[in-house]
């Protein structure tokens, strides 16, 4: 084996070794790496009990209910397998809307309601001009709900 081949082997060894170490570490800390839990994980009891965590999913269409005269708000977060009701009082990001992604931070109350103290909007990777979105909406006949305000 020439010295060059030995150095090549060393470099490949480093890359493989660090990749394996990284993969093991990331899979061991999976729950810490993940930014939010989805409703199925919450319903299955995989979330840290009594601690603050983030809940992410879609805002169920037609589920947003506002208490008149206040910032209080109730909606349902779904991953299309399970639902979690959320209550929140505060300012919403502009992109918060029914049928779109949302990430809420807070605690799970004993009755199964998630009490959020922060709500972030998660938009998807699709970009399109307003006219295209409008004609898509017309063709599908299903309303993409208007902004929550």
């Amino acid at each position: 084996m020439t010295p060059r081949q030995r150095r090549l082997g060393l470099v490949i060894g480093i890359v493989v070794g660090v990749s394996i170490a990284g993969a093991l570490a990331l899979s061991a800390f999976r729950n810490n790496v993940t930014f939010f839990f989805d409703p199925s994980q919450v319903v299955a009891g995989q979330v840290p009990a009594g601690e603050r965590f983030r809940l992410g999913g879609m805002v169920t269409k037609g589920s947003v209910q506002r208490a008149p005269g206040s910032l209080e708000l109730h909606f349902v977060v779904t991953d299309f397998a399970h639902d979690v009701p959320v209550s929140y009082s505060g300012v919403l990001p502009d992109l918060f809307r029914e049928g779109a992604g949302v990430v809420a931070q807070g605690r799970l109350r004993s009755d199964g309601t998630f009490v959020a103290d922060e709500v972030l909007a998660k938009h998807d990777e699709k970009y399109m001009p307003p006219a295209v979105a409008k004609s898509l909406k017309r063709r599908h006949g299903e309303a993409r709900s208007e902004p929550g305000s």
Partner: protein
Amino acid sequence: MRWTWFHRLASPPYLYALAARLTPWFAWPAALLILGGLYAGLVLAPPDYQQGEGFRIIYVHVPSAWMSLMVYVTMGVAAAVGLIWRMKIAHAVAASCAPIGASFTVVALVTGALYGKPMWGTWWEWDPRLTSELILLFLYLGFMGLRAGFDDTQRADRSGALLAIVGMVNVPIIHYSVIWWNSLHQAPSVMRFGKPAMPPAMLVPLLVLLLGFTLFFAAVLLVRVRAEILQRERATRWIGETLRA
């Protein structure tokens, strides 16, 4: 296979002259593509149906983030070549990449924060994508700091190269972070299976800017490699002869 072209690149006087000749061939197309792409993206492209005019920040954010990864891959490959073939010029290329890559990473992080506040409702979250991109910045800075810690160029080259190669594992982690884990950041719109998730009127300016940023990186890299060669070869005769000529 003939490798003579590759071995000739390892000669500092040859690469010094070649880099000078090539620089304008990258710099001018880069300037034209970036100016044209910015005009197309910021003025001509239609607004987004949800994000409105604010989505236009992707025309700076996405190319910068893309370059922050591509420059790191270039740096890591150059460092590996330098380590395996004992090629000083490759180490010079790796050293020249780091400040450029760090700058692109800062631009990606800052534009991302400016984008995140109106769209998501937050400047910063410890999200997998955001955190791994921040680690990338620390890898660049660590690489530069480690190199600066050695007086001896050869030892700086070898230690820096090891760090650059170890840091390569972060590149796929950044790219796949939004797929492997739940993330606030959306999935890739362009680099995905199937058609890109945007119409040509929005996509074309983005692709033009990606190409423009890539050529800009090549031009800046060539200038920096020449400076690095001057620094490393300052005691040699050919430098004196070249500079007098």
